[in-house]
């Protein structure tokens, strides 16, 4: 009996995880149980994210075992939690809440976040701040009587805001201290009447993101994440997860933008020219090398020795996407002059590789801006990986309110 149950303080192994999956499937037949009920049961069985603690959807097991769980459940025809729809919750809100949340916050938020019953969005970026995220102007002022925070400001580039029940939010709570010190991190109820979400139409014609106007939004202090004024540090955990998620996606050979380019070259001999051949092959090589680089980073992480290479993946990914999609439009020739549809729509999820060459070309322009510009990433590599001196900064010791605008 003892060997098949996890010893307290000892990590569960693959066989233990498989046993738990079998127990779950025995108790909740995916073919009969409603999707939501099954997902809740999976969470309660610690099989949502096995590396999370017990009681919070996990087993405190090595992260690598998640693949075992996912494979077994997929094989059994179990529903999943549609991770593309709730990526921000899973990838950004959840690890931050796990690390900085109170026990009560973790218990309240993580389960519906994971099951997808509550969609999350991220209220970080602002029109005036850009790469200098810490320069944000959204103010949160504490109401003396209630202790609640009243938030006013504007956020931008918010995906899923129109679907979201909750948001992770950073706001300025003290303009009299240097900018990094006066920020606090909140969990914001998107149903608050002061929250207005407007679609933000972008270069592709559609509105994948939103602008969010916050007017007198009330947030109870219980929904503050981390200490007052500690929001910048908390946000770093969120952003680190975002970049890993963007750059570290596993793709098969010819996955990503190179796929349609290679397919067009193969299937449409009339598009081929001698001049383009070497460039298409160069693009193929570049894509394969990014794939290998990403694979190497994953192997480093799996070996428990994450190298600095991870910082470069998002940069490489953006450059590759832009290069390959630009070449694809050129290859398409006359067809490249057409664009599928400029109609303004609000897509539920985004596929960088979807639609036509023109869409891919335009959409890829965002890859070097969203989630940290390529310029900021180069700074990070130069300073943190290569150890070169930081930029001369004049804004670190000045009160936020006194900075030039």
């Amino acid at each position, binding site marked *: 009996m003892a060997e098949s149950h996890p010893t307290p303080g000892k990590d569960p192994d693959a066989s233990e995880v498989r046993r738990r999956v079998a127990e779950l499937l025995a108790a909740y037949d995916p073919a009969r149980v409603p999707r939501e009920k099954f997902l809740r049961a999976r969470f309660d069985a610690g099989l949502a994210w096995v590396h999370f603690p017990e009681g919070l959807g996990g087993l405190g097991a090595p992260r690598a075992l998640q693949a075992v769980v996912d494979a077994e459940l997929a094989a059994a025809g179990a529903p999943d939690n549609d991770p593309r729809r709730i990526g921000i919750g899973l990838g950004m809100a959840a690890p931050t809440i796990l690390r900085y949340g109170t026990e009560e916050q973790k218990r309240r938020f993580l389960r519906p976040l994971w099951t997808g019953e509550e969609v999350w969005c991220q209220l970080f*970026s602002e*029109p005036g*701040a*850009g*790469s*200098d995220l810490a*320069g944000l102007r959204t103010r949160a002022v504490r109401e003396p009587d209630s202790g609640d925070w009243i938030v006013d400001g504007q956020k*931008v*580039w918010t995906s899923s805001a129109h679907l979201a029940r909750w948001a992770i939010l950073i706001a300025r709570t003290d303009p009299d201290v240097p900018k990094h010190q006066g920020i606090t991190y909140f969990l914001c109820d998107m149903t608050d009447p002061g929250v207005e979400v407007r679609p*933000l*139409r*972008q*270069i592709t*014609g559609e509105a994948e993101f939103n602008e969010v106007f916050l007017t007198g939004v009330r947030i109870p202090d219980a929904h503050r994440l981390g200490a007052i004024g500690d929001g910048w540090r908390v946000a770093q955990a969120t952003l680190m997860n975002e970049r890993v998620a963007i750059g570290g996606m596993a793709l098969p050979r010819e996955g990503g933008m190179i796929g349609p380019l290679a397919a067009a070259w193969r299937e449409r001999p009339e598009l081929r*020219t*001698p*001049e*383009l051949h070497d460039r298409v092959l160069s693009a193929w090589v570049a894509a394969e090398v990014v794939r290998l680089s990403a694979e190497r980073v994953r192997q480093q992480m799996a070996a428990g020795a994450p190298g600095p290479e991870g910082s470069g993946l998002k940069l490489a990914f953006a450059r590759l996407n*832009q290069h390959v999609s*630009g070449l694809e*439009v*050129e290859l398409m*020739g*006359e067809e*490249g*002059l*057409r*664009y*599928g*549809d*400029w109609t*303004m729509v609000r897509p539920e999820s985004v596929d960088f590789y979807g639609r036509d060459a*023109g869409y891919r*070309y*335009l959409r890829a*322009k*965002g890859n*070097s*801006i*969203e989630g940290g*510009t*390529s*310029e900021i990433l*180069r700074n990070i590599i130069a300073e943190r990986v290569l150890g070169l001196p930081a*930029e001369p*900064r*004049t*804004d670190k010791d*000045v009160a936020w309110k006194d*900075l*030039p*605008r």
Partner: protein
Amino acid sequence: MNLLYSDVEDDLRTAVRDVLADRCPPEAVLGRIESELPYDTGLWKLLAAELGLAGLLVPEHLGGQGASAREAAVVLEELGSAVAPVPFLGSAVLATSALLGCDTADGTVAALLARLAAGEATAALAVPLSGAPGAPFPGSVTADSEGRLTGRVTSVADAFAADVLVVPAGGPQGPGLYEVAAADAAVERFSSLDLTRPLSDVTFEAAPARLLPAADPAAALDGALLTTAGLLASEQVGVAQWCLDETVGHLKQRHQFGRVVGGFQSLKHRLADLWLEVVSARAAARAAADALAAGDHLEAALAVHVAQATASSTAVHAAEEAIQLHGGIGMTWEHPAHLRLKRAKADELALGTPARHRAALSPLVDLPPA
């Protein structure tokens, strides 16, 4: 070879720029692109008739301004900069050049040129915008023995604005250029990558047509494509210069990390490189315009291929840098940068890609393929 701008050219630029500043602000362009009428006909009337742009390339004795490719190039720099929704390239350059290659002593040709030059009608040459000089005479439209045209031409620029179509077609006597009333063809506008230069597919079903007399219709068509390709380089320079100026301007006023963003050295160096690229493309575009004006065909072809192989990439690079260096705001529909990116990328495909122009250069400079 004169690579500078003459005083007359400078004056022309000022006149065009003043009209565009007044009548063609970014919001107006943006508001128009998704409307039913993607062209600003009022603006075109002003430019065409009052400034005489419609007949710029038409000799004076045929009712035009008798200017050369040098002046047309200056106009295109300004129209490209503003991505102005007017059919100058399609009508006053491409179609007009084809007509000028026909027998202009012929009454039909002369009358049509005079109407165009006066701004009374607008024309389009029925070739795909992606068509390059040096390609074989197109065969997708044929004329029957009674001179009626049947066939289809895809991706025609400025056809939607045209009253008259000049159509290359195979006929009983071989290749010819035909005049067709736009009303006698089916002109279907489609969703084009470049929102400010609408494209259409044009279908002819036994459309009544008039053969335009020409000693060598194929040469007339090819000359028009060469001229337009060369002048497109100036449009591309205009687009690139706008992108550079707007980006420099934006970065001079935006603050991040307590500093003016334009003071960050990596951006300064990228902008310096881009400036050098634009300066170089301008020299190449001027050389093409000057060579086209001078009329030595071989030297003009060489200069056009060099200019296209250069300015296409410069415009795309400048627009891409503009988007990137504007950050998120440049990705929004409301900001005018994306219109230049789309124009630049479409222009890269228009009238031959850079690689195609390099390949066309190969025999002219005796650098044969492997």
